[in-house]
């Protein structure tokens, strides 16, 4: 037993996921993504590459989008996590979810939860004035097609739904700005 705990140490981790507090004992090697999928049965966040190269695992950690496959759960003790399962308000879909359905912004759907969480992050980042690579220096970002394409580039979609994703995010951003 001593030998095992030396070789495979675990820790107690407290996480708040979609508003629900959890206290878990986890192998230190466990990523946030595997915590969600294998321990909490929240399989919305997807494993596409497991190396931060595709974005399918994107969730919001303390409100900011992040690749959950590269985060060790043990290092997130106390964090608040929002996954795609937590975007909707009960039966009422998040405006981004509605827009994705309307614009057919996915086909196989495997990248979709990551796209949605990433898009939620994009809306917040732009509202906070966070620049992207295409934002002119000295200007506040405006979520036009070019900005959305650049900001959503951390989420690969092999079905090629990008033009529809861009429209969905843009519609949501405009509707949000109009409110």
């Amino acid at each position, binding site marked *: 037993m001593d030998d095992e705990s*030396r*070789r*495979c*140490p675990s*820790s107690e981790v407290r996480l708040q996921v979609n508003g629900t507090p959890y206290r878990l004992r986890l*192998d*230190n*090697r466990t*990523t946030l993504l595997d915590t969600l999928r294998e321990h909490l049965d929240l399989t919305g966040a997807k494993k596409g590459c*497991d*190396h*931060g190269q595709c*974005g399918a695992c*994107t969730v919001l950690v303390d409100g*900011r*989008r*992040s*690749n959950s496959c*590269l*985060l*060790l759960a*043990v*290092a997130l*003790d106390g964090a608040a996590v929002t996954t795609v399962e937590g975007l909707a308000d009960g039966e009422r879909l998040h405006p981004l979810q509605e827009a994705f359905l309307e614009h057919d912004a996915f086909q196989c759907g495997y990248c979709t939860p990551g796209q949605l969480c*990433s898009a939620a*992050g*994009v809306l917040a*980042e732009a509202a*906070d*004035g*966070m*620049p*992207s*690579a295409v*934002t*002119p*220096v*000295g200007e506040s970002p405006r979520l036009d097609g070019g900005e959305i*394409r*650049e*900001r959503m*580039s*951390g*989420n690969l979609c092999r079905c090629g739904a990008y033009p529809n994703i861009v429209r969905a995010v843009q519609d949501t951003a405009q509707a949000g700005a109009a409110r």
Partner: protein
Amino acid sequence: MKGFDYRRAGDPAGAVAAVAAAPGARYLAGGTNLVDLMKLGVEAPDLLVDVGRALDDRIEEGPDGSVRIGAAVRNSDLAAHPAVRRRRPALSQALLAGASGQLRNTATVGGNLLQRTRCPYFQDITKPCNRRDPGSGCPAVEGAHRDLAILGASDQCVATHPSDMAVALAALDAEAVVLGTAGQRTVPVAELHRLPGDHPERETVLEHGDLITDVLLPALPPGARSGYRKARDRASYAFALASVAAVLEVREGSVHRVALAFGAVAARPWRARTAEEALRGAPATAESFARAADAELAAARPLRDNGYKVPLTRNLTVRLLTDLAEGASR
């Protein structure tokens, strides 16, 4: 990935003591590169000392215009900070040209500096690599090296440093504040990484246990402009084929002050001192810029498939310096 102990450091000194005492220990901050490498088996620490909360995550602008950046500052926050975004666009642009929004939200300044090469042989533990396994050989010299080094490489290793941010920091004369068991010291970012020579496994001048706690940016003269240019296969979310960061101050049509650094061409952000020397006092024209870039790149030793980096780096340099000279700040 083998099992490891995890300890959260309360302060930098405690972190240094913990890592220095354990040969198999590594610092964990954002983890975007370390966790990736642990999954690949390239890194197999016994102990992770988490400095994500022990290190400072603030950016402070001094009265003289200098800036102190806590090593735990996230890349996206650094890119957005006015002292960087307005005053040092090169750094903001470099940060935003790297990785993805998600990764920039997670990766820290210290971790970005210390990220490892993306050479495919380094990342594949079933193959030889002198950097990972000294003496095993370097298959990249004859193998897949389109993305690899043209400057400062050796027949032992042709890896490149993948960071965009570090290239801008090198041009901005940034210094890393390093805390070690013997106390604190500063290291210019341009000299933080070693060239491979006969010991590619020695990637930086840091010793085991050394911890980057801050990055210092000196004040920029009021007339200096900076910028960053990167070329890549994909329009976004791709490592550089080559990149250039520059700080330029032109007075009366001549180069008064210039700092130039190349990315993705060497095992470290390549401060182009030869080019800078050639430019000082020269007319701020495309011809001067091209001559200076050529002077720097005369030392290039391209491999079979990466010779394109020579004209690419030259063209990026000319375009960036021309834009800066013409007053375009981006």
